[in-house]
């Protein structure tokens, strides 16, 4: 990995201007992915002194600075209080503590990594991203955004709502990337279903959600039916970790289990 310059930004505007100077200038979030792939950069733009490492709340939202480490995120009482700890639980599944003390929440989101447990864990909920220059986008919109967004993530806003969540990461060993991961929620009586690492970035299973949310009375068979719809509507592929078929079979089991769990 070659880096020509390490640049400590003095403000978010300063960081943005530095980013515009050269297409090979990159924002340093935790830096773990560029280490992994050995990415050459011109300048690494460090945001660590800009106060983006705080978690706060308003009446309606929990606001997470983009530079909050995954470890601080999973330990935050504000995050843990949401959806029976399921978002924090998802992040706790990422590698070890000595990794999550470096990795940031914003880095995992901005990379739109197919294997991201952070994205999968957040996607069932109302999550809005705030960027510099001033722009807001839901997490779902950002995942669907085509091309690279020329902006810096400032904060992640999670709407405070009453509901239950479920998260499951299937992996070969404790420190592995997921073969496939799942997040299911029931918030204000409505279900959301997310399947990630298929091995594409996490996505909502909208047809399955529409099916289960249209029912007035739900039985265990409906959980299975919704899981089958999710397995059918989303695209799955083979890679070295798992076959497409195994991912589909896992979806049928874990989505049904998740729906049952959040219905309790």
């Amino acid at each position, binding site marked *: 990995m070659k880096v020509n310059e390490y640049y400590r930004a003095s403000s978010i505007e300063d960081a943005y201007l530095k980013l515009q100077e050269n297409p090979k200038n990159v924002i340093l979030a935790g*830096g773990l992915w560029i280490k992994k792939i050995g990415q050459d950069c011109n300048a*690494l733009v460090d945001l660590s002194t800009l106060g983006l490492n705080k978690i706060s709340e308003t009446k309606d939202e929990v606001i997470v600075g983009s530079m909050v480490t995954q470890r601080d995120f999973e330990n935050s009482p504000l995050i843990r209080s949401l959806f029976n700890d399921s978002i924090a639980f998802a992040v*706790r599944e990422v590698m070890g*503590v000595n990794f999550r003390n470096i990795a940031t929440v914003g880095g995992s989101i901005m990379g739109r990594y197919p294997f991201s447990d952070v994205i999968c864990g957040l996607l069932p909920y109302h999550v809005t991203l705030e960027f510099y220059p001033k722009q807001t986008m839901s997490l779902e919109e950002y995942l669907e955004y085509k091309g690279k967004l020329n902006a810096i993530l400032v904060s992640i806003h999670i709407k405070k709502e009453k509901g239950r969540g479920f998260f499951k990461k299937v992996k070969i060993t404790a420190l592995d990337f997921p073969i496939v991961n799942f997040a299911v929620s029931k918030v204000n009586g409505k279900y959301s279903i997310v399947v990630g690492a298929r091995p594409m970035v996490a996505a909502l299973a909208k047809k399955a959600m529409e099916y289960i949310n249209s029912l007035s009375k739900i039985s265990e068979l409906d959980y299975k039916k919704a899981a089958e719809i999710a397995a059918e509507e989303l695209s799955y592929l083979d890679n070295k970790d798992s076959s497409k078929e195994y991912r589909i079979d896992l979806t049928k089991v874990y989505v049904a289990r998740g729906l049952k769990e959040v219905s309790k």
Partner: protein
Amino acid sequence: MLVTFYLNDVEVTYNVRPGEYLAESLRNHGVKSVKVGCNESTCGSCTLLVDGKPMMSCSLLTASIEGKHIITIEGIQEEAAKISTYFAKQGADQCGFCNVGFALVIYALKKEYKDPTTEEIKNYIVGNLCRCSGLQSHLKAIKAYLKGE
């Protein structure tokens, strides 16, 4: 570029490349207790404490630790000696390569948790791999150390 930080409470200034990682910088300056195993942000052998938090030094850019406090095994010698006694009692000591990272992560665990559950201990040490054993002996040693038995 110059980076100034505290190494075991002593202020030091290193001249490093902008893309250089802390494990390499420390070893270049004679701190050979920092062990690099996988160099892939996975095995945890290179773990040290940054402002009290365990981090993998193979994956932490030296430039990012300006002004921070770094603790290596030399900084916790007394506790490390205690931990190694517990490891020896359980036969958790084998080739010894992962011990330095383990000692630091266990020290951090003790500071962070008052009375951790088995799950919390496992979650805390999962990022430190021992290639010789099955980690059961480590878990027993850590529990005994935390209880001071």
